[in-house]
């Protein structure tokens, strides 16, 4: 099976400081892959570079297509989508307009069916469709950001800390939806500090520390790893707390 997304030997630097060093990663079709790690490990940096927000040295390909020289918009056209950490919604526009713009590159017919799919996934958004995005609750904003990304019918959806700052009950809801995406044929690359929840729904996992992957494997194996259990699964609390 060839990989949908393959990143090899990626180096990402802010000026002279290398935030990510020689990282390689693969996501296959219909797979949920998670990258777990402490705050500042370089997870967000890696996702942003895969999307093209930050420059990257190394190789990235999506379904065999080389991405390195492509702009963000061109990567979107190839089927890559990022729900960024800060969600980047259009705050002064309503829910429906936000979603409609998510399908900016598609046709009218595609948009109609995408609307149906997104509203089925997030019924709450349908209730709020005339409300301004900026006035939604945190959980609803996260749903809208995911819905907007799905409107473009991506092959690979990258989620950056979807649980950040949300109530546990909403986090459970969001993670259930991520699980449902797989049956809809969308692969997911999930970056999370909430390692427990992430490892539960993921097929495979990478553990990132100080800009490098220190461990990779099946999610269940990674969760069973002693060091991971100690550092990220709540047996010790140092270092893993969020903002």
């Amino acid at each position, binding site marked *: 099976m060839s990989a949908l997304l393959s990143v090899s030997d990626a180096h990402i630097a802010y000026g002279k400081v290398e935030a990510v060093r020689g990282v390689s990663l693969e996501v296959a079709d219909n797979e949920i892959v998670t990258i777990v790690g402490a705050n500042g490990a370089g997870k967000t940096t890696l996702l942003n570079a895969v999307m093209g927000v930050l420059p990257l040295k190394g190789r990235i390909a999506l379904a065999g297509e080389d991405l390195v020289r492509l702009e963000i918009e061109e990567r979107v056209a190839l089927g890559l989508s990022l729900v960024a950490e800060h969600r980047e919604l259009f705050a002064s526009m309503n829910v429906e307009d936000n979603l409609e713009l998510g399908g900016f590159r598609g046709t009218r017919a595609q948009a109609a069916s995408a609307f149906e799919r997104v509203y089925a996934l997030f019924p709450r958004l349908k209730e709020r469709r005339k409300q301004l995005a900026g006035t939604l609750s945190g959980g609803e904003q996260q749903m809208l950001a995911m819905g907007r990304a799905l*409107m473009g019918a991506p092959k690979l959806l990258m989620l950056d800390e979807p649980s950040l700052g949300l109530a546990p009950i909403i986090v459970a809801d969001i993670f259930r939806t991520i699980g449902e995406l797989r049956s809809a044929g969308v692969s997911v690359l999930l970056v999370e500090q909430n390692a427990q929840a992430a490892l539960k729904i993921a097929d495979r996992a990478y553990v990132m520390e100080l800009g490098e992957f220190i461990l990779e494997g099946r999610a269940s194996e990674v969760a069973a790893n002693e060091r991971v259990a100690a550092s990220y699964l709540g047996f010790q609390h140092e270092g893993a707390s969020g903002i």
Partner: protein
Amino acid sequence: MNSTILLFLVQDGITNGAIYALLGLALVLVFAVTRVILIPQGEFVTYGALTYASLASGQMPGTAKLAVVMGIAAFVLDLFAARRALHGRKIARALAVNIALPAAVLALTVWAAAHHAPVPIAIALSLVIVASIGLSLYRLAFQPLAHTSVLVLLIASVGCHLAMQGLGLLFFGAEGQRGPVLADAALTAGPLRFTGQSLAVYGITVAFIIALWLFFGLSLYGKALRATAVNRLGARLVGIRTSLSGQIAFLLASVIGALSGILIVPITTLYYDTGFLIGLKGFIAAIIAGLVSYPVTAIAALMIGIVEAFSSFYASNFKEVIVFMLLVPVLLLRSLATPAALEEEKD
């Protein structure tokens, strides 16, 4: 002062204010989408007005040639920027927009100038010429700087203004021109007499504002433009090219500028540098609205028009001074109303 004079001055002020409103709206739009403070807006006014006036009097306007030259430069820049990923469709599209269109317009302009083309054709040609100059201006001067700070963009904007004003002197000479009126009819209502031209100004301004409102409220491209203004990264993440939004914004701004010029050139004599002053008044309206609010810009523009009409009646020597003085209290109030100094936005 009696009520007749009062009414006359208000009427005059609203006619000018309508033009300032159009220009102010274009400035707010361009700033919101591209962060460029569009000083060359005034040149779009001049170019539109004088191209129209030249065509109507059977002269060949130099702006048509400028559009071709800028188009070629923009095409070369496009090819260079895309040199690693050239494909046929991209090249064909750039060729059509940047070279074929202005070249066809140039050919039509030569014909129109020689045959004293009727007014509607002269207007259409002037609009297309200035629109293609506006589009190329964005490609040449602002798209390569899109990621820089507002200050850099402002300086580039001043540079474009100076260059275009100089070219305006070259194309149209130092003498002023007037164009033919759009409509001869006149209407009398009580003491007021509405000329066909001032009615055209009102009608076209209102129609344009409604059209803009529909464009931004209903069309996908209009929403994409708003999205770019609200959140540039968010817009890129859904696949909206910043350069596409910039092009649409400049296209609208140049068409609005040219249209304003065509509307006023039958009323006042325009010189190669008049546009700057007119654009500046639109700019004041935009500043009063904090460069963000469209309705406040339109209302402020009408106020500026009326203040200008009254000051030219009472103290015509100080007309401009009084209008520009309006800025001082507004800026003062705005700086007091905003608690923390607004730093340059992060990008």
